[in-house]
């Protein structure tokens, strides 16, 4: 190949590739609306709060950003909004050793931010992040009723048992030693603030996806508490 031929191939080849990129860009932009919910004023205001405090300087969102803190794409799927709002306002009031500092958001800003995080969690990301394929169930073989409920209500989103689960709330591996009283647990689960002032743990009602009858709730709370005291 002569130098001139190489040069022409470079120039025209690149222009052609760029033209294809432009076409794909136009097509992509046209398809974005159907892949995400509508962007309300509140969501947009939340996005601005996200930029204002430079959350991307520690977190990733849609997997892009900084790798110092967890990804924010599907946070609202696993944790209740009230809890997240409390956390963002003052992380160390909930988790004393949290690596996230208090950034000074106002109540209003935090509310908008949650609306933004809820929006992003509904974007069609081609199934990212993927479900862990090797996920261990903490139970393994002999699941007692409360253990199944512990999974069902996704308590693992916030609590760890033997290294598995979230780190937002205390580790529950030895909770049976620390709090052996079934009645305490039932009270705590029903309304955490009744026993722990300013608790950030959601009430049992807020974790339910469907309405349950009172007797059913009674039963499940007891089963959960029975499971918790076995952890030691």
């Amino acid at each position, binding site marked *: *190949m002569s*130098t001139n031929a*190489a*040069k022409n*191939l*470079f120039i025209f*080849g*690149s222009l052609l*590739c*760029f033209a294809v*990129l432009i076409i794909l*860009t136009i*097509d*992509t*932009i046209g398809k*974005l609306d159907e*892949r*995400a919910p509508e*962007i309300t004023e509140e*969501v*947009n205001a939340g*996005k*601005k709060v*996200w*930029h*204002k*405090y*430079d*959350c*991307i*300087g*520690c977190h990733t*969102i*849609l*997997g*892009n950003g*900084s*790798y*110092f*803190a*967890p*990804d924010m794409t599907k946070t609202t799927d696993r944790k209740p909004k009230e809890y997240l709002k409390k956390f963002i306002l003052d992380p160390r009031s909930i988790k004393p050793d949290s*690596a996230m*500092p208090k950034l000074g958001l106002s109540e209003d800003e935090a509310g908008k931010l949650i609306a933004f995080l809820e929006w*992003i969690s509904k*974007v069609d*990301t*081609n199934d*990212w*992040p*993927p*479900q*862990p*394929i090797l996920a*261990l169930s903490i139970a393994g073989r002999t699941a007692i009723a409360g253990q199944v409920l512990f999974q069902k209500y996704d308590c693992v989103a916030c609590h*760890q048992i033997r290294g*598995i*689960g*979230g*780190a937002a709330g205390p580790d529950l591996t030895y909770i049976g030693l620390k709090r052996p009283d079934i009645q305490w647990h039932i009270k705590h689960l029903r309304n955490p603030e009744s026993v722990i002032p300013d608790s950030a743990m959601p009430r049992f009602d807020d974790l339910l996806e469907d309405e349950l009858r009172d007797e059913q709730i009674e039963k499940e709370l007891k089963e959960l508490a029975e499971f918790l005291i076995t952890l030691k």
Partner: protein
Amino acid sequence: MHYQSHKIALNFYTAALLLFLVQVVVGIIAALQFMWPDFFILNFNTIRTLHINALVVWLLMGMMGATYYVIPEESETELWSIPLAHVQFWATVLTVSAVIIGYIVMGLNPQANIEILGTRLLNEGREYIEAPRWADILIVVSILLFLLNNFMTVLKTKKFTAVQGVLLGGLTFLALMYLPGMFYTKSMVLDQFWWWWVVHLWVEGSWELIAAALLAFMLHKLLKADVRVLAKWMYIEVGLVLFTGILGLGHHYYWIGTPRYWLWVGGVFSSLEPVPLLLMVWDAFRTTRETRGVVENKVGLHLTVAHAIFNFVGAGLWGVVHTLPQVNKWTHGTQITTAHGHLAFYGAYVLLIVAMIYVTLPSIRGVRQFRQSGGYQAFWWMTISMIFIVIPITGAGMVQTYLERLLGLDYVTVKASYNLWFWIFRALFGVGFLVGVLIMVKDFFTLGKKPVS
């Protein structure tokens, strides 16, 4: 030939190296914050912003310095306007200083980051392009003045060389690709879509053109190799860079809310991206092998070849391993990305500028012989440290991918307990890297000033 214009290149190199020092010092602080988040008055996000912005800005200033050297030498004339180049230099320094101060103020008090005219005053809150809009505009003006000066210089003697063409073409493409980062979008998906135009089409497009042009320039200057052969391979390299790199952009559009066809486009084109980088390695070796005669500037040649190799390893190999959607689905946004980011930037661009400095500084200072050991020492301190930063971080990425993404353990648990040792290693070798930079800065200020003994 000795040109007045080359003093401008020296100014840019000096500013670049000082920012390099800042970058590495804050890098070490960031590394320590992985173990002690409250280690410093500024939070991690501000430190990281300083780290990556200092990086990008010093590399850009290094490229500008290199261009102010290459264009007069290739055109065999002084710059079109030396005063304009001085103005452009100081305008850049002022803008960059103002932006840095802004980041620090914002870090100390986020409330100072107010909204004016629809954008943020101090920090835009978007990775790499944190600089606020007013600074973006000043930076664009500065780049336009810089381009104008160099284009007019080329027009003065109408000696159009291939190196000039690709170098200025790459720089123009660079300036244009800054624009997609300069408007606000309500959708975070669209925000990231355009953001990647800037980030990806810079490092895997325009910057790679600049690298190919400077590689050809250095091989010619060091080895007196035939320009026509160098030009031909340079065109083939940059042709392949853009053929694979432009649509390779798709490897960032797998999971951000864009249509599924990007999995194909990104996967196919980006997995070919290492090919031109490998070609550059071969080019460097072939030219060196075919040239007989003594090479005076051995350290310059050493760095040039090292740049070609580490460009391929860091960008090509460490990039291609996680570029297929089947892999990227699991590794996206983990420490694997950090490891790749470090080795790629180091190999492709840090070593490029370091090589250019060592290739051109003797001529700028008007010496032919100089003490070369400082250059070698700096190189080995930096390179070995970088390798021992990247290995632990790759390890951390593998552990994270396995435990968090495959087993479903919590992010915080993996970071705080399983990966702790990797953070310790990174911080230790970060100090080793700093030693290398210090050796180089000292060598830069003294090179050619004392007679060789």
